[in-house]
């Protein structure tokens, strides 16, 4: 299908790591798209129509066919625009890539957020420990590779943008020393490499507004104690 016939839309919010994953994939593939900024406090009819199950962003719409869930979207993008592959071609390597991406969603995302954004101290400490353990697994998995995907970044790197860009923001806000070069030398080096990759750099949101927004959330949480 010629580019001019493609209709590609992304519903998102600035500052969402999950939306960012999709934006990185689209940038890597050089796909032009229309971006629609959603207001999660007042969700559009379009969002509710395209993601009735979860009512969340990101939602990717290709020729009027919607797909929610960031990792599902990234795989779809990879299968539709085949150059600059995101997943490896070998089935075992693909299974590993899917496993580690899911690991990030299941074991890192929630725990890292709660390691800062939890009022109860015991609960917060528990999440710090869980985050530490999860990041250690990733440190071990990365070994001496430049990216999780090898010489070029892949699915796991894209999923891990949460670690590279968002976790440092949380921990600065919360005064937490979790993801540091002392604790995780390989993962930390990877994160610097990743956020400075031209494709990723152009896809990341501007740091200051995201920081300000997340700081306000933290302050309102502490105030509610």
């Amino acid at each position, binding site marked *: 299908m010629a580019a001019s016939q493609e209709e590609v839309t992304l519903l998102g919010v600035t500052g969402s790591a999950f939306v960012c994953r999709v934006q990185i994939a689209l940038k890597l593939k050089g796909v032009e798209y229309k971006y629609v900024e959603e207001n999660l406090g007042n969700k559009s009819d379009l969002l509710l129509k395209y993601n009735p*199950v979860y009512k969340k962003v990101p939602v990717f719409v*290709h020729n009027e066919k919607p*797909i929610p*869930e960031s990792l599902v979207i990234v795989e779809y993008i990879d*299968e*539709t625009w085949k150059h600059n592959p995101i997943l490896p071609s070998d089935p075992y390597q*693909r299974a590993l890539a899917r*496993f580690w991406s899911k690991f990030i969603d299941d074991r890192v995302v929630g725990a890292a957020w709660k390691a800062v954004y939890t009022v109860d101290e015991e609960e917060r400490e528990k999440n710090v420990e869980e985050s530490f353990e999860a990041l250690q697994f990733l440190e071990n998995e990365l070994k001496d590779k430049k990216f999780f995907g090898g010489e070029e970044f892949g699915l796991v790197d894209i999923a891990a943008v949460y670690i590279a860009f968002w976790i440092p923001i949380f921990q600065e806000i919360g005064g937490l020393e979790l993801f540091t070069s002392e604790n995780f030398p390989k993962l930390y080096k990877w994160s610097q490499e990743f956020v400075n990759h031209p494709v990723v750099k152009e896809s990341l949101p501007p740091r200051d507004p995201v920081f300000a927004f997340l700081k306000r959330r933290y302050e309102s949480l502490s105030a509610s104690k």
Partner: protein
Amino acid sequence: MADEVVLLDTWAGTFGMRVRIALAEKGVKYEYKEENINKKSPLLLQMNPIHKKVPVLIHNGKPICESAIIVQYIDEVWNDKAPILPSDPYERAHARFWVDYVDKKVYPAWNKMWLSNEEEHEAAKKELISIFKQLEETLGDKPFYGGDTFGFVDVGLITFCCWFYTFETYGNFKMEAECPKLIPWVKRCMQRETVSKILPNEKEVYNAVVEMKKELESK
């Protein structure tokens, strides 16, 4: 070189059953190793050190974990027959989305229902029913979630059906009354030998769950 395929699993595990169905659909011969969840084997701990869970598929010595990921792996490796995922990328995304939905929603809701106190029980029961109502809606009038053919979402969901009697008994409701359109789909799937031979008897599952609950409560 002959393929060496080993599956670490438990007989009543809904996630492992998905893998067994997929292997059967593809006609893959494998060695089955029953795991005791309360006393995990060294092999399991070695092959899945991160989650220490079943199922784990070991193909020529290499472990693959997480049932949905294993099923996709099986589909990609043994790609000469019985395709499980559709070939169209949008349909594939759709299938992955719904299997992920089942993964995220069914088990946590069930867990809340059978382990909760009286107050939370009603809310958990309503949640479980609403999840199945959503799945009933998604099926629509299609014979299978995969359309005309048995596919990824069918594999992903059918394994929970041998737990219906357990859900119904603990929740005091009837799946047939709440989600009538799901029942013909269950029957259709059960007509496949790959499914009927693998899914255990509903009452056996219930008895095992009752035993498990007793053990938990006695601790």
